[in-house]
């Protein structure tokens, strides 16, 4: 009886194994993998969305520079419509499971931002951890770049935004879920890295700021670096200090930012930014023989950082955007209501920033 039972179960299991169709009834060779997606504004006012897909063409050889891809574009009055029309342009079905980079152009973000984002958020197969970026001049041109070192089509951008691979302090990366939160919350504003195509590669060293739902401007390279430091992203850079003929570089090992909103009684509120930096000197023209010289340099570097951060904060404030979420800090203290939000908006325009840097030079490398 026991043996008969187990035999029966074995048969049942074997029968069920046949139903495991792996790729949900559609084999992998019948799918087209979309690796990145771009949305531009077209010239046709009736069909404002120009959607471009970068489709990876699988090949047996995985070699740098041999990654083949195909770009198809379509104008339509919505993204969903564009995708549907594009399906008739290719032989296989689209699979968005590997779509890791979403690129937009400036004009579409100025007008149709919530609409665009809604499609991406609603699709279950677009990952919440997809990187978002602004393509300059257009998203399609960014997609069309064929990167020489790329082993898998579309992977270069993905790798540049990945903090474990590329630690450049000029690259600010942003994922879709975080962007959506920033867009819909009062008191924090979204930002997007800007990608500009070069001949065989890209340059990503600026960040575009957004206020409410509108794109308002870009930060330059140095300000982008400061923003990265203020956001605590773990991308560490260098500090260049020059005063008179004393010029040296500090290589940052640790960078920690704490931002507090202080609301004293009967006084104007201010923003207290505390930075904690550690690292050795990487290059110095002067020989640092004595400890007091090192301490002097340390003080100097802290002042430089203070100034750098304060200027950037003021510039961001002037643009009116709030990527650091200072408004959230205010709401956490004063309560969340439309009245408080409005009060904060007035307050933010001329709030004072107090930056304090605790910088420690850990050493001078292999030389004095």
């Amino acid at each position: 009886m026991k043996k008969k039972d187990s035999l029966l179960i074995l048969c049942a299991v074997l029968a069920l194994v046949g139903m495991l169709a792996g790729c949900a009834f559609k084999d992998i060779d019948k799918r087209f993998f979309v690796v990145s997606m771009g949305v531009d504004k077209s010239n046709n006012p009736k069909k404002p969305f120009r959607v471009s897909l970068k489709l990876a063409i699988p090949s047996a050889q995985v070699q740098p520079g041999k990654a083949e891809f195909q770009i198809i574009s379509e104008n339509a009055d919505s993204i969903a419509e564009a995708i549907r029309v594009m399906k008739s342009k290719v032989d296989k079905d689209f699979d968005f499971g590997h779509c890791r980079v979403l690129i937009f152009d400036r004009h579409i973000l100025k007008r149709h931002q919530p609409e665009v984002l809604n499609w991406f958020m609603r699709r279950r197969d677009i990952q919440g951890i997809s990187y978002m970026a602004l393509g300059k001049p257009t998203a399609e041109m960014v997609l069309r770049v064929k990167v020489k070192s790329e082993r898998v089509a579309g992977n270069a951008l993905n790798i540049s935004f990945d903090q474990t691979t590329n630690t450049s302090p000029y690259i600010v990366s942003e994922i879709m879920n975080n962007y959506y939160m920033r867009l819909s919350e009062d008191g924090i504003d979204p930002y997007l890295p800007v990608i500009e195509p070069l001949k065989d590669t890209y340059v990503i060293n600026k960040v575009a700021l957004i206020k409410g739902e509108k794109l308002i401007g870009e930060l330059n390279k140095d300000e982008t670096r400061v923003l990265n430091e203020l956001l605590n992203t773990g991308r560490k850079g260098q500090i260049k200090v020059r005063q008179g003929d004393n010029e040296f570089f500090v290589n940052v090992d640790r960078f920690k930012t704490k931002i507090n909103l202080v609301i004293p009684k009967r006084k104007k509120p201010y923003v207290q930014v505390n930075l904690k930096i550690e690292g050795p000197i990487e290059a110095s023209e002067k020989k640092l023989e004595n400890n007091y010289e090192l301490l002097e340099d340390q003080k100097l570097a802290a002042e430089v950082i203070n100034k750098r951060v304060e200027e950037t904060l003021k510039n961001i404030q002037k643009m009116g955007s709030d990527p650091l979420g200072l408004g959230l800090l205010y709401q956490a203290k004063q309560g969340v209501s439309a009245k408080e939000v409005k009060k904060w908006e007035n307050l933010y325009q001329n709030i004072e920033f107090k930056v304090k840097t605790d910088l420690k030079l850990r050493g001078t490398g292999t030389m004095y």
Partner: protein
Amino acid sequence: MARYFYYIVLMNMSLNIILNVPMVLIQNRFSGSITSILISIPLGTLLAYLFTKGMGRFPYQGLPEIFKEVMPGYIRVPFLSFLALMWLAAGTLAVNSYSYVIKLYLNPEMDLRIISGFLILLIIYGATRNTQSILYKTEITMLAALPFIGFIMFKSLSSDYFYPVHIKRILQFTWQMPNYSSIAAASYIFTGYINLVILNRNIQAKEILKYFWIIPLLGSIILAITYLIPFGFLGIQSVGDFVFPWMVTVDSLRMQYGFIERTSFILVFVFMLLTMLFGIVTWNVGLELMKGAFGIQDRKTGKRLFTLTFLSIIGFLSVYFQESVNQREFFGYAKYWFNIRLPVEVVLVMTVFLLSLRRKKT
């Protein structure tokens, strides 16, 4: 044996991280969810304590046996059958909610009826097993799932995209009047103990009371996590835009060094394990209650006719129910079920507790 009881309690707590509890709480986030949670912690603990204490006086007896001694048939049979249906509905709601998750994230091209049908087939197979074997399965599943749950918790608390300031903001809405459906949903976290109605045949309730402090402790931690972490990722406004806030929350996490990058698939896998287990346990308890109500002893005779027909009918009704309502209506019904569950639970606990007092006197 007491540990099996805590596995069941823990299963109930962790399963509800994803299913319907956060949905209700997040809907009421501006109107008294936090006070409701604060009320539900002592309420849930008290009910659990009274019930465990009460069942401790009836060693190795299930609810049908206890009722048989003291109640006339015309009260006992409807009451037990009603309870059985409540349990079966709990399993159905969990499995059906989970099939929505599968449909959304794993198998969008598959028919919803097929997904929930297969899940229910598996659950029928599991639920007709012996209660003791189900307890063993509980242990295996929980030990397999807990590391993953811990990993996801750790990942989310240490993520760059977790903003504690949103949690501070939602705590601004603490002092609001509590509302009934939030209390009903939040106290559901603690409800794992109620499966003791049947499991008391295998577990000695007296041993459980030694470690009873685990329940309020774990319950409060899990409730806080369940409710607060989605805010940290999605903000207090946009968290209301999502059907499964936890799926989207976990989708913000990335495993740089993992085989797969998207953490949400791990969550789907863990909840596959937990939902199957939950379905099996609740349906087994429901089935045993039903059998107890009508005095069917099929374990001795070896004839499983009643069991199989009954569960097939329930299974068919579950699939039919999901087929006939849309997702929004389905969640509406889940909410009704929460609202009915709390008074039923209170009545059941009080009955058992009073019966146990009477037993002490005589």
